[in-house]
């Protein structure tokens, strides 16, 4: 009886499962190719149409900023506007796919839209269409509304460019809305400054009137740790300072004896590693994000400084030490164990290590015996190295953009020390600062 019952039950369950099961849906697949040489899609950005004369300048500015952002992304090609069809669409209904795909435009994608403006508000409708697709849906479609100011329009343009880049780069966010912190002495004292990624909107953050160095963004981009010379009890020494972008002021951070410098954030933002001579020799220490509970990590005869925490794994730290006689790069675990030297084929000074966002590449400055400081990128696992600046002044302090495709650095190639940015393969160098001396850039993580 029992076995009969079980058999009936099993059959019932099987029937139920069969009925509930959805039919298997066949899957798409595609095949595509990439070549060693650059293979970029062409994105045309039509002139955004002003809805009234009052919107003309903002429409032109929006168009230009979007074009610049896309061109500098390194992954797209923006055809010259002289190749565009004479009639620019302002809404999707006006977009004729064929005239954009035909020569000489040869576009794969077309961005367009319109700008309306009143005394109280600017409204920008913006679209991106894949003009070689059978789909009539926009790849991107946005409406931006805000104060009718130049700054707001620039911000919207960056946001639209980032939308496009996010779609066309496999989900990797664009960097058009990111910021760069740096040190500027243009007003006398070295203060921490900030600017848009394209050099626009440069403004000071601190006004300590002493010396501020080595700014480092927290992973959530809410704070900047830096080296400062804040006097306390009549004593001036290098300390770690913390600037809050939310509060707009310097927050308290523990003070230590000796010289304290070169802070680096852990990827989760809970710890800070820095170089300190609180016990005599400059060694690496780690504390929490307020400077509490310092723990010594390195024990060597030479000085250890410039730690860089692998942002992906959080387990490896690259740093500089002269324990072998001259400054060289070393790797260690985040708890200070397993220190290994990154032995390079040539001698010379190696400084300023900076991990790429994916934690796979290490950029650094290297002064080879017969040369100047230049920026190099290394794959630590294979020890392969690529030189990405050459014969153009002294190039130092690289910092990666969050997209891993751009590097900001300081260079003396124009005679004064300025901030420059380039694609991570060394192409498209662009000068971002001009006024005074500017150094030690650090790219915001978002």
């Amino acid at each position, binding site marked *: 009886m029992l076995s009969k019952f079980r058999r*009936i039950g099993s059959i019932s369950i099987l029937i139920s499962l069969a009925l509930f099961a959805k039919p298997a849906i066949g899957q798409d697949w595609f*095949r595509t*190719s990439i070549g060693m040489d650059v293979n970029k899609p062409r994105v045309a950005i039509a002139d955004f149409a002003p809805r009234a004369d009052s919107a003309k300048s903002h429409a032109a500015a929006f168009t230009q900023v979007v074009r610049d952002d896309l061109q500098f992304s390194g992954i797209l090609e923006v055809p010259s506007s002289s190749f565009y069809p004479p009639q620019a669409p302002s809404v999707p209904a006006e977009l004729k796919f064929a005239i954009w795909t035909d020569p000489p435009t040869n576009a794969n994608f077309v961005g367009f839209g319109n700008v309306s403006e009143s005394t109280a508000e600017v409204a920008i409708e913006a679209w991106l269409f894949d003009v070689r697709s059978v789909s009539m849906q926009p790849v991107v479609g946005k409406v931006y509304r805000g104060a009718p100011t130049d700054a707001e329009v620039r911000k919207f343009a960056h946001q639209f460019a980032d939308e496009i880049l996010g779609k066309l780069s496999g989900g990797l966010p664009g960097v058009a809305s990111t910021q760069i912190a740096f040190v500027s002495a243009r007003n006398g004292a070295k203060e921490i400054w900030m600017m848009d990624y394209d050099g626009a909107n440069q403004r000071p953050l601190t006004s300590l009137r002493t010396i501020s160095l080595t700014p480092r963004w927290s992973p959530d981009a809410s704070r900047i740790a830096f080296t400062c010379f804040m006097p306390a009890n009549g004593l001036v020494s290098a300390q770690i300072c913390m600037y809050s972008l939310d509060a707009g002021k310097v927050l308290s951070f523990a003070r230590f004896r000796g010289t304290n410098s070169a802070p680096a954030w852990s990827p989760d933002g809970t710890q800070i590693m820095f170089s300190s001579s609180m016990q005599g020799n400059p060694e690496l220490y780690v504390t929490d994000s307020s400077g509490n509970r310092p723990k010594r990590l390195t024990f060597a005869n030479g000085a250890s400084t410039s730690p860089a925490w692998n942002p992906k794994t959080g387990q490896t730290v690259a740093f500089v030490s002269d324990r072998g006689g001259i400054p060289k790069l070393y790797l260690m675990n985040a708890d200070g164990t397993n220190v290994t030297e990154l032995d390079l084929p040539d001698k010379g000074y190696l400084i300023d290590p900076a991990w790429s966002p994916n934690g796979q590449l290490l950029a650094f400055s290297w002064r080879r015996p017969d040369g100047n400081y230049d920026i190099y990128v290394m794959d630590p696992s294979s020890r392969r190295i690529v030189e990405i600046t050459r014969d153009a002044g002294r190039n130092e302090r690289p910092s990666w953009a969050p997209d891993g495709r751009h590097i900001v650095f300081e260079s003396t190639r124009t005679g004064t020390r300025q901030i420059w940015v380039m694609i991570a393969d060394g192409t498209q160098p662009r000068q971002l600062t001009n006024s005074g001396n500017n150094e030690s850039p650090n790219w915001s993580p978002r």
Partner: protein
Amino acid sequence: MTTAVANPQDVTLRNYLIYSLVLHAALTVAVFTATVFDRRGNAWGGVGGELGGTKVNLVTAAGIPLPKEPVVTESKAVDPTKGLYKEEPPKPPEPKTDATKIPKFEKEKPLPPSHKSKTFESKTPPPDNAVPYGKGGNPDVPTGYSQTPSDGSSGVTVKGQGGADFASRYGWYIEGVKNRIYGNWQQWTIDAAGRASRTAHCAVTFTINRDGSVKDVHISEPSGNYSYDSAALHAVVNTGNVGKLPGDYSGAYVEATLDFNPPSIH
């Protein structure tokens, strides 16, 4: 002392069996009802069945809500369809230049120019479901996914029932996949022979899950040069995630084959 009585378990099982049969009968009726409703509700997407492809009824952009973007309070970015179609009504009053264009677009809407390609008709006999990309045929820009050489060594080959038109509908997504992986293709790790070769080619096949993560990465066509294959394989593995599949794509995953070519071949 034991007493011989009718086995009480038999009585209990009989009752349960009756209950079970009644419940299963009710369950079967419910399942059939649910199945009928389920099939009826899947009218605009899913498996086409007889024709072996997904049946997708294209509707106007107004009918398809775009994926909602995170609303940034400062920018007041809003859903484009809302903004667009709220703004549409006031536009007709502009008689200046749009008077002739708007009706034209209305006529063209059902037949986008991309479908009318003559080049495509005459040029591509082999792929029965080849993508009428743009004007059709091979665009003269180097986007590999739109090219359809029949030897299968590069370009798009699309088949299957999950829509069978992924490459034509989501060219932007494929462009993103290429860009993302290209960024992780460390060509410097290829030995001198591999880099100097003008004929080296390998293909890596992998599966893209809905969340953009990749799995089952393997060399499907080796080049014969270990470092060349290794760099290609690592490019995909190290990328890890190539971006979420398009929100309106109905499939659970997509299989992709990426050809890694020397400079002169795309």
